């Protein structure tokens, strides 16, 4: 039985394993989105931080209470009003200098106003004021009603007035092209959070974080773990002693202490300063800022704890393989130790590396949530962990869009990986319990 036919048999089994194939496609889709965010700038950090509308609007344009509709349209009107308010100040200042005020500066300010891709209408400041006044009149009419949420017999009147106010509000903003309108609907697909940021864009950006954290920590941990495990298992002696000591030590420090202490280490900027001294300021240039702004602390923290698992498993397997007949045969044939390790032992533990990678990937994504909470992890942009944590207060106000979006996207990815790693284990390592 040669290695090649074994591999192709595993591949055939995998292709025939329907849940595994579906999961694989799902994961590829996530990776594609992550790649588009990283390479193609699909969603930028600025997009995550920008305001796209009033706070806590629900997604899919779900029908709302009159009160919330009123609040939202008032918010849009207030954005214009704030710019217009500058006029009064400007007027006073100019008049004190004896200059006749013009609206040029105000209109310039208004042209600069952006809510997502929504921009103010191309009209004069006076026209804005007229439209605003009529809007506020409608709103004042609405304020006459005591309880907007339980209108009873007044429903039709309130509906008419609210729609009118919404129409007046819309007239403050420029007519959007169909493409812009489509984009805007997409931005507001899952609603907005407390700061009016787009939940949809934030949850998409978070895919980048999850995939990066999963791939990089999975890769580093498996690489370190396999290297040490192979060396310890094959060479034995003092190498084995050192490696066993190392992983016993790391395993005996509680995971959470390790993460906290590493978080503490990276927070002060001392490591940045030290590395910059060492490399003549090339380090900061290389990573484009300080360590805190990158995901490097996350990678380090996870890799420091995650390499133990694969190391232990691979050391055990290598110990077993070292005694196997084909390895002894290659020894007798006088092959070098490096050749035996790379050509004969490595291929026979590669399935363990694959399984461990997929297990660590899940672990990394789920721990990222905790790490964001600890304050290392993602600081700029967004991550599912930050979103779920931010949703705590929203949930108490019955607003589920942010936590829903983050959980749903995370659930899809983690579930796919859970199914995939189960299938990998069944196919590649059937003896494992």
């Amino acid at each position, binding site marked *: 039985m040669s290695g090649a036919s074994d591999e192709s048999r595993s591949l055939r089994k995998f292709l025939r394993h329907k849940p595994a194939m579906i999961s694989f496609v799902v994961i590829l889709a996530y990776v594609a989105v992550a790649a588009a965010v990283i390479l193609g700038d699909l969603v930028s950090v600025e997009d995550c931080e920008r305001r796209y509308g009033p706070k806590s609007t629900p997604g899919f344009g779900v029908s709302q209470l009159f009160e919330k509709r009123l609040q939202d349209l008032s918010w849009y009107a207030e954005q214009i009003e704030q710019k217009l308010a500058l006029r009064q100040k400007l007027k006073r200042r100019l008049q004190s200098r004896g200059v006749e005020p013009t609206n040029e500066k105000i209109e310039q300010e208004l042209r600069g106003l952006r809510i997502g891709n929504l921009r103010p209408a191309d009209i004069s400041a006076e026209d804005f004021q007229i439209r605003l006044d009529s809007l506020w009149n409608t709103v004042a009419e609405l304020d006459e009603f005591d309880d907007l949420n339980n209108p009873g017999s007044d429903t039709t009147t309130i509906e008419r007035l609210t729609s009118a106010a919404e129409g007046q509000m819309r007239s403050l903003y420029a007519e959007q092209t169909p493409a812009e309108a489509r984009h805007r609907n997409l931005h507001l697909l899952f609603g907005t959070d407390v700061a009016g940021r787009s939940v949809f864009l934030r949850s998409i950006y978070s895919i980048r974080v999850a995939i990066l954290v999963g791939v990089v920590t999975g890769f580093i941990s498996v690489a370190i773990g396999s290297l040490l495990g192979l060396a310890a298992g094959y060479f034995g002696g003092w190498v084995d002693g050192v490696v066993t000591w190392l992983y016993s030590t790391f395993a005996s*420090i509680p995971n959470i202490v390790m993460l906290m202490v590493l978080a*503490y280490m990276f927070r002060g900027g001392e490591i940045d300063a030290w590395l910059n001294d060492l490399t003549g300021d090339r380090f900061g240039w290389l990573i484009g800022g300080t360590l805190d702004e990158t995901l490097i602390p996350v990678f380090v923290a996870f890799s420091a704890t995650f390499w133990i698992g694969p190391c232990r498993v691979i050391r055990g397997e290598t110990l077993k393989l070292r005694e196997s007949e084909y390895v002894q045969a290659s020894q007798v044939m006088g092959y070098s130790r490096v050749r035996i390790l790379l050509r004969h032992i490595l291929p026979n533990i590669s399935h363990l590396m694959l399984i461990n990678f997929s297990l660590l990937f899940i672990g990394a994504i789920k721990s990222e949530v905790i790490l964001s909470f600890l304050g290392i992890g993602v600081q700029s942009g967004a991550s599912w962990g930050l979103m*779920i944590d931010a949703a705590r207060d929203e*949930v108490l106000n019955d607003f589920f869009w942010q936590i829903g979006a983050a959980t749903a996207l995370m659930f899809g990815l983690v579930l796919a990986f859970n199914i995939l790693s189960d299938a990998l284990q069944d196919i590649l390592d059937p003896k494992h319990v």
Partner: protein
Amino acid sequence: MWAYVLRRFFYNIPVFMGIVLLVMLALRVRDPVNGLLGKVKTEQEIAAKRMELGLDKPFVQQYGIFLKKLCTLDFDEESWVNRGQTVGEVMQRCVGPSLALTVPSLVLTTLISVAIALMSAWYRGRWLDKALVISAVLGMSVSFLVYIVFGQYYAAAWLPDQIGMSPFAVSGYEPLEKDGIGTYVLKHWPYYCLLPVLISVIVAMGYDTRFYRAVMVEESGRDYITTARAKGASQPKVMFVHMLKNAMIPIITRVVITIPFLITGSFLLEVYFAIPGMGKQLLTAVVEADFPIVQAFTAVFAAIYIASNLLTDVLYAVVDPRVRLS
């Protein structure tokens, strides 16, 4: 066996020293003195503080002093942030709340998971088994944080609306010492701790059920089961007498391995429910650069971890005569 225990003990001395070394080194990457003193400080003040905390000594000496303290079980060092409290006192205060959360959840999780795993193995391959396996995987794919957020929402906002009273607290804790054991068990514990315990049981159940089911399935394929069946033993007898007994070894191992983690507490639950346990204290200590507490916590945890690993191996040999300690 005693020779084995002794050898393992000596083998673990360098491991333990390594743990202490790593944590102390990692902590000293940053200078804690600036954070501990206020905004306004002079060079002299900084130097004096450094001397007071013993940070002016060379690292090797600090390491030696701390190791000596550990060897003599001296936990009287003062906390840097909470002046007047020794490390031992802080630990004593925090371990209770942590155990109040972790012990019940470990017991409940194990009992429920083993029961579900048995059920799953009983109906192996049928719809109930499949449904259980699928729901375990689904449950595992949701973040711990989501369980906490929704748990708090239902307990604090939804349930009180439905029944007109609030059975669970969302934050806070009353220690055992305050009103005696009777009030604690009947009133305070259920009010403050039951909800977090339930949440952690639900989170852990997916993992445990899958593991125990795999163990049961593995056991059910063995020869002694076939023999028992051939002899005409009933299904309940095969499952509960023959199989469960043999499946006890991995179950015990898994439980013993989690024992050290009982004292670190469930950090996320403690923070979200404002329960003043070890995990929360540890986070505060790390953020405030309270070195004595972080170091002592880590050392104590590591000692318990190493001891329970040893205990697992010894228990193994006691339970299963085939295992030889060497």
